[in-house]
């Protein structure tokens, strides 16, 4: 298919000229073949796009329709692509009989606190790395890169013992602490890269005028760095959304499972002996929809944040 796609483009201009001349029947043989190839290429292009669209959309479509379907549609060996009996029962059940609101609240709390902790702990450090010269600066930067390569999951046992000592096992704050490990490193690197691109003259002027470094940092640098901080917070936030392994290590479900994050909750719904697919589907839709909307609205912002550092370097 990849061979056919460019054909479409390259023969694009000459062909209309001939058509305009009103002599389609007298086209040289090569031209006729290329016209045919062009049409075939067009068909292939749309076939490919349609196949990919089905591939991309099918899982999402299926779960949306399943969320509106009754059990008789889901526990059958026949295919149902539309809910035979449209019902909102799954949504009602998800809210009333499963602790869905608790799961969402817990997840928001954990991700929010992680983002906050990441920013608070890292911003002044990032500023120091970007602006001050001191022994061990290079070493710290290298260490940051090395730490970034260390997935928290590898230190599973150590984290478990650490939280045990701090009495934070089975506590959302314990999860925040573990997630902060990745968050601090990422936020620091992100902010530092952004600050590297900001001119230092403003702060120099402020220091000459008698401001303390803290004042310069607080009143000049922080307002300027807001976009970078926002992007770092959002990425940190989103990293926590889907994290399963560490959450599963820290949190043990209580009697009704209300202390879980939503990914653990959805997993427990699926491994439940009842496997309530309809409720699972409804809960998935409720949780995913706002996330996907946020993602699409924030996408532009992400990319502008991306271009400023990292890959663009």
């Amino acid at each position, binding site marked *: 298919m990849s061979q056919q796609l460019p054909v479409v483009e390259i023969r694009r201009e000459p062909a209309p000229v001939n058509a305009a001349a009103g002599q389609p029947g007298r086209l040289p043989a090569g031209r006729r073949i290329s016209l045919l190839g062009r049409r075939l290429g067009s068909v292939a292009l749309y076939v490919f796009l349609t196949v990919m669209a089905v591939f991309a959309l099918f899982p999402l479509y299926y779960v949306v329709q399943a969320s509106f379907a009754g059990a008789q549609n889901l526990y059958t*060996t026949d295919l149902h692509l539309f809910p035979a009996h449209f019902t909102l029962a799954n949504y009602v059940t998800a809210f009333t009989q499963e602790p869905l609101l608790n799961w969402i609240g817990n997840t928001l709390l954990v991700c929010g606190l992680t983002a906050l902790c990441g920013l608070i702990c890292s911003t002044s450090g990032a500023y120091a790395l970007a602006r001050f010269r001191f022994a061990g600066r290079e070493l710290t930067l290298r260490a940051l890169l090395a730490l970034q390569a260390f*997935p928290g999951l590898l230190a599973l046992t150590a984290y478990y013992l650490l939280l045990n000592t701090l009495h934070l096992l089975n506590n959302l704050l314990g999860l925040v602490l573990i997630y902060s490990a990745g968050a601090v490193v990422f936020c620091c690197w992100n902010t530092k890269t952004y600050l590297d691109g900001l001119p230092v003259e403003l702060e120099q002027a402020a220091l000459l005028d008698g401001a303390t470094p803290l004042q310069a940092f607080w009143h000049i640098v922080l307002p300027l760095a807001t976009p970078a901080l926002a992007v770092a917070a959002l990425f940190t936030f989103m990293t926590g959304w889907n994290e399963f392994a560490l959450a599963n290590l820290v949190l043990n479900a209580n009697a009704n499972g209300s202390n879980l994050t939503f990914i653990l909750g959805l997993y427990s719904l699926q491994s439940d002996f009842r496997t309530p697919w309809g409720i699972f589907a409804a809960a998935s839709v409720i949780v995913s929809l706002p996330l996907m909307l946020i993602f699409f609205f924030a996408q532009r912002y992400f990319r502008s944040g991306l271009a400023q550092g990292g890959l663009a370097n």
Partner: protein
Amino acid sequence: MPMLRVKRRTIVAFLLPMLAMMAVINLWPILYTLYLSTTNYSEFTSDNYRFIGLENYRQLLFSFDSDFFPVLWQTLLYVVVCVSCFLVVGMLTALALNNPRVKGLPFWRVVLLLPWAAPSGITALIWKFLFQYDFGPFNQIGRLLFGPQFGIPWLLNPTLAFISVVIVNVWLSYPFFTVVILGALQGIPGELREAARIDGAGPWQYFRHVTLPLVTPALVPATILSAITTFQMFNTVFLITQGGPVVSALKPGATEFVMIYMYNRILGATVANPHYGFIAAFAITLFVILAALTYLGSGLGARSPRASSIREARA
């Protein structure tokens, strides 16, 4: 780059919150894991464990019944298969979306990038349902086409389970490559296409000698980062297969990749006596491999960890 001159005190004060936090939650766990890897610490010996030197590493790397190399091998196979699929699917979709003849481009763009926006943990659980033997829609479609006895044991057969988690990972990750490649394609000046046409280059030659070399600089870091992320993939695969299916109690499951293997040896339901020391050695060995890959990768063009974090955010 100009630097600010400040007192040593100030520098320490600015760095302190970050370094203190990192010492507790980043550095200590790593050092403790390193220490554990030289002990015989396990659930049963937690009161009287002792230093045993490099014995865990010897067992991991040089003993015949070690699972290390089979697990590493199937993880690397997974990485190679997945990343090749990402590249091919990402390239094809990007070429299609870059074609000005396609009508309704914004529509196709949104649709084809939609898997990127969906929260991956949830979509993994959705895919698990799609693969389900009796009620999953894939087998339902098969039954519709090939009769009632049709059935593909997607997650029950080792090879098919491997293929299933590849499919899911391709679904999750190709949009990232589409975006990267599309960005590079849009940076190619139109005159090049015209010049190539005048010089008589065919479409394949144009792709091979113009498009590909111009897209490669963007592709190399994306590929390396993606390979590293796939190597340490846990969530998606675990949520779908838990590392299974397990054919024999002595062998790791067909989709038990390095992270899942480690996790199952500590938290697995069938593990009575997790051998923390041994698993720590496993973790440290993995870290060395990952650090080497990252180092090589950063030499090849990925300069900051930012892009890997973006992938992690989606992973």
